[in-house]
């Protein structure tokens, strides 16, 4: 009985891995293998597929009661290194949603941010989120983050 269970587990692992490898190399899954297993295996096999020629950062702007917009200091909310934080700003798990769904998630994030700001005594009538994109430079991460080279996308 134990041997049967072991061999079933091995078969399942091999099937999931073959499926994950097929997707890594040819973007097709092995039919009959549950998606969650194939996709998880693919996730373990295929890190670091492409690169960007620009940097991006999430900027939050708060509107005062007097109607003036001001950037919110996000450093309080960044808990880890630049690499990790710069992945989180894309809300990777929600990238598969339609544009509307992703927008809603960013809105939820902005609402949470407003509550946290209130707790710190910083009151905003409204918070909006923007993605700022600027070219990379050997001179430094923020070196080319100047208005003329920075593209702003409202979220």
């Amino acid at each position, binding site marked *: 009985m134990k041997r049967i269970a072991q061999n079933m587990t091995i078969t399942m692992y091999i099937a999931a*891995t073959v499926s994950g490898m097929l997707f890594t190399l040819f973007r097709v899954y092995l039919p009959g293998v549950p998606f969650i297993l194939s996709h998880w295996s693919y996730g*373990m096999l295929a*890190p670091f597929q492409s690169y960007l020629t620009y940097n991006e950062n999430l900027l939050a702007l708060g509107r005062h009661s007097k109607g003036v917009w001001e950037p919110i200091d996000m450093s309080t909310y960044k808990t880890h290194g630049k690499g990790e934080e710069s992945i989180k700003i894309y809300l990777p798990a929600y990238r598969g949603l339609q544009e509307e769904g992703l927008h809603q*998630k960013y809105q939820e994030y902005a609402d949470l941010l407003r509550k946290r700001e209130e*707790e710190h005594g910083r009151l905003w009538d409204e918070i909006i989120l923007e993605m700022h994109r600027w070219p990379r430079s050997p001179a430094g991460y923020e070196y080319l983050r100047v208005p003329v080279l920075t593209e702003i996308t409202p979220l």
Partner: protein
Amino acid sequence: MITLWNHFWVREAPPHALALVRICLGIFLLVYASTYALHITLLFSNEGLALPLYNDAPSPLVAHFLFTLSLIALLGFTFGAYFRVCATACFFLGLYYWQLHLHMFPSSYNRILCFVLLVFMWSGAHKTFSYDAKRTHGSWTAWDPISILPQRFIALQISLTFIGVSLQKWLLPAWKTGEILAYTFIGRWSTPLSNTLIRLNLPVEFYDGAILVVKILQPLAGIGVWIRQYRLASIIFIQSFLMLVTVLLGIWWFIFLIPACILFYPPEEVYAYLKQKNGI
């Protein structure tokens, strides 16, 4: 054929190699968890910025309780104390933190860690060098044989990750030249060392060459770890590569794979080595 299959996958073997990996992985996970310790309310509670996939984030009090529970489970995992309970708790708490926060950072190493924890749940990695061995047999170094299957799963996954990641480099357009390396060294994953390297203004051929070397050696290492005469060289390459990824890109989470390379050696040899050196 069946004998070979059974010998490779399911024979009984000494638990020492897997126990050493258990200890190293437990220490790694404690360090990893400690990077979250000061941010529990912000990342894991309903008074923070959590955007959970399924269940709502709990109150800060519950979030702190669960985090403390995680640390206790990790300590039990590391010391092999009530191991099955602790390893199971580690796996399910890992899934919980995935749906709560880690999905924001769905990296390969987090996925491999979840897989490894799942394998450890029923591994018998506590059958030596553990509090459980002391409790049941009266000695930390007492041991019982275990199935080699968990060791095989972890070792195979490491080598397959190296093979998969290298084969895709031959197919993906982004990996045709060394540009990917140069741009990565000045991007969000840059470190002081990669910044220094980029400022040397080395010709693009340097980066092209580095990429080509990696594309050739990575799959060879993934296969070489299974061939006795190439094993050590392959492990040295894998470990050097992971160290370079750590210092040049700041991606330190893969270093838990370094001690796990011991799993490429037959467990009988690891036991014989330990017995000879330390009289275990």
